[in-house]
């Protein structure tokens, strides 16, 4: 478990938060999380892992069964949602269908008793910010999905909250629009300097948008790290498998020497790895290697490095890359990705080859 406990500097802090809906199972188990001001934090995890629940507790729609949530250093457990001043974008946008776009945007300002002229100016500014300036008179039903998304975003920002929560806001959009909106949202968040907590189950989205990603599973944060660290140095086998493509081999630790571990795979072959969360010989381990770090050109490997025998099962031409499926140590789903370069070898099915990798690219994780 790697999570930072909120110090005094944290803008948002979850401290030992637990949540149970039915009194029998914990949906969120001992959550500790600190988010600093201006940070774009993404909660990433499979469906049902408790992300929405965390967001709802932060927004005030659910109460924590145990623990404390602090905003700006103040405990907010007993503050009702409408006094928290947190902007929120819902998955289905939750635009009020009986109000026009402009009325939707004016709503948070009206309930704050902001004067009419001031209100209009702010609504206009917010609409311009999401490039919807000319559509203020429309009803939500007359807008496309992408436009509704922008309005929902503008509405969450129009009253200038310091913290914005977004629960899978792009889930309903098509791929191209989603990519465009990912960019827009990050740009706005950074330009306005607001703190954002973003929930998604889409790892690409998380990797491209976030400053920090908290990977959720089973009610716990499995790893909290910036995207590059998360991808290249997963701390456990769940994170390794959940983020990006990953090859897994099962084995037992034979010995550990500093930052090199020798692992005996289940078919008896030996490989070199970096020990991540294994500590002593004899432990079971899942070894994780990214497909693009696998090497079958012996010249590029260190002399004396352990290699493995492999049989080519399938070669898939994907344009920019080649994707080759191998049988390695009894695993039929071992994938290698190679760049489509002029000198690149195209492996043929049935071919017997030897593969290897740099020890630091091969991580011995928990079994």
């Amino acid at each position, binding site marked *: 478990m790697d999570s930072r406990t909120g110090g005094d500097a944290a803008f948002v802090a979850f401290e030992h938060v637990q949540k149970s809906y039915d009194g029998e199972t914990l949906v969120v188990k001992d959550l500790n999380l600190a988010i600093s001001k201006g940070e774009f934090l993404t909660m990433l995890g499979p469906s049902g892992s408790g992300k929405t629940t965390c967001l709802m507790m932060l*927004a*005030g*729609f659910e109460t924590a069964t145990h623990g404390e949530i602090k905003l700006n250093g103040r405990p907010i457990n007993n503050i*009702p*949602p*409408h*006094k*928290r*001043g*947190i*902007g*929120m974008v*819902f*998955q*289905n946008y*939750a635009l*009020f*269908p*009986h109000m026009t776009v402009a009325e939707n945007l004016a*709503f*948070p300002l009206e*309930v*704050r008793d902001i004067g009419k002229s001031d209100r209009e100016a702010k609504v206009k500014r917010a609409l311009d910010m999401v490039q919807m300036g000319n559509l203020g008179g429309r009803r939500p039903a007359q807008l496309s999905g992408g436009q509704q998304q922008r309005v929902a975003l503008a*509405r*969450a920002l129009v*009253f200038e909250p310091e913290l914005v*929560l977004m629960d899978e806001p792009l889930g309903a959009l098509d791929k191209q629009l989603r990519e465009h909106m990912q960019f827009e949202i990050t740009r706005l968040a950074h330009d306005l300097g607001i703190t954002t907590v973003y929930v998604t189950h889409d790892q690409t989205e998380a990797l491209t948008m976030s400053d920090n990603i908290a990977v959720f599973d089973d009610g716990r944060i499995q790893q909290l790290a910036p995207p590059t660290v998360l991808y290249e140095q997963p701390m456990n086998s769940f994170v390794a498998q959940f983020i990006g493509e990953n090859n897994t081999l099962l084995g037992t630790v034979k010995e550990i020497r500093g930052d090199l571990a020798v692992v005996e795979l289940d078919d008896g072959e030996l490989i070199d790895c970096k020990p991540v969360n294994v500590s002593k010989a004899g432990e079971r381990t899942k070894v994780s290697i990214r497909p693009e770090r696998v090497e079958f050109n012996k010249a590029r490997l260190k002399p004396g490095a352990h290699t493995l025998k492999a049989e080519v099962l399938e070669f898939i031409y994907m344009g920019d890359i080649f994707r080759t499926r191998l049988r390695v140590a009894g695993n039929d789903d071992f994938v290698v990705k190679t760049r489509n370069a002029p000198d690149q070898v195209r492996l043929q099915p049935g071919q017997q080859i030897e593969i290897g990798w740099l020890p630091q690219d091969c991580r011995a994780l928990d079994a």
Partner: protein
Amino acid sequence: MTDTVDTGPMRAADGTPLKVSLARALRRQKIRALALVAPLLIFVLVTFIAPIADMLFRSVENQIVHDTLPNTVRALADWDPSSAETPGEPVYAGLAIDLQTAAEMKAHTRLGSRLNYEDPGISSLFRQSGRNVDDFGKAAMKELVAADPAWKDGATWGNLLGTDKWVEAQTAWGADKTGLQPAFKARSGVAGTLPRTLGAYALFAADARESGRKSALESKPWPALATALEQDLRAAAPESLSALEGIDTALLARTRDAVDAAAPVDYRADFLAMDKDWASPDVWRTIRVFSPQYTAGYFLNSIDLEKTYEGITKRPPEERIYVTLFVRTLWMSMLITFCCLLLGYPVAWLLANLRASTANVLMILVLLPFWTSLLVRTSAWKVLLQQQGVINDLLVWLGLVDDGHRLAMINNQFGTIIAMTHILLPFMILPLYSVMKTIPPSFLRAARSLGATPWTAFWRVYFPQSVPGIGAGSILCFILAIGYYITPELVGGTQGVFISNRIAFHISSSLNWGLAAALGTILLAAVLLLYYVYDKIVGIDNVKLG
């Protein structure tokens, strides 16, 4: 871009113009669709539209006076209803024929009941006169038979008034008596010379045809025919009688001479002797005012007006009940609808927002009343609300109410409102529930997150979206309430009954179906009007049942 010279209309693959072939394809589709719904359509038309059309028709239909008293109505046209005088001899002469034929067909009592709605007491006049009126006919028949015994014979009358062909067909029918007797056809020329006789005979032939046992030619002629013929013979010019073709003119001439020789009957005096009410101008005014085939009379009655010879006037104050009832029905229905809304809204909200298991139990409680008899539920309210009932007992026991001043909560408007609100509540809750079920909870959350207090979030965001449910529930409750009659009948006393109770009374007790139909029509129009107003104000597409 095209390589064909494209001047004409677009063509389908087989060369027919595209429009034609499209229309053909669509027509086939339409016919198939129509054929599929046809059974249902016919069913709806027959069982739903037809009764309504019948009701609309009954509310203005008034043929009975015209059909039963044709001669009287014709003669009465010359009488001035504003005079205090009774009408002249021709009216009584006509009445003598009409009343006899009516009595033969037992139509005089129905006519009496009809006119009795307008002028109470008139029905006994008709009933009693109908019993003795054939004295006229018997005397006249004696006279005719004295002139020629052939008048005793039904065939004589048939030969005189029917076409030769009809007589032939009628004789043929008499031989085996299968099927229906041939319909009566009048001989040409008699209509001008012997109009009264012909009119009476047509009824006679139709009556024989309907009874189906004896041919009109073999039946004993009605005495009314004799009265009619006697009057006709006195009125007719001798030349016109001899000009009639194909009949025994000698017989007619002989009879005419005999009739002329006898002293004319004084119908007026005889009628007055029979019943002095025949001297009352009011009776004649009523007959005259209601002689047209269609009348607005029922509708006027429905709004406490009446039609007199002087035009339309207000009914006497003690007879004005319908406007009060209509107004009461409308405002009490609105009040009941409002009470249902007030009580139903929170329940529907709970239903839509509680956990599924709890909501199901609650739903069963809401539906439970549907499974208990309406009568049981209404009677339960009697037990609860009556002066010696549970609630009064409780209040007295608590000392809130003095034993001598127990509250009157039943057999008045209060009772009707309470019981009907209870009965109609599910009809408000169900549409509200189904609309609320479609409002995602995220709307309220969104409003709260935007800074709205729970009340503002409800009022500005949730409530407007539940309006279609309110509309549907209110229309349902209101329309049901406006036509309700069992519950007001049982718990409404005299002050809490609705217009429907009056309609039911006229349908089952007073048998004044015309008035019931007019009241029903007004009720229907009121509902449609309100529906229209609702559409203008709220918009009918803003009504959702789910």
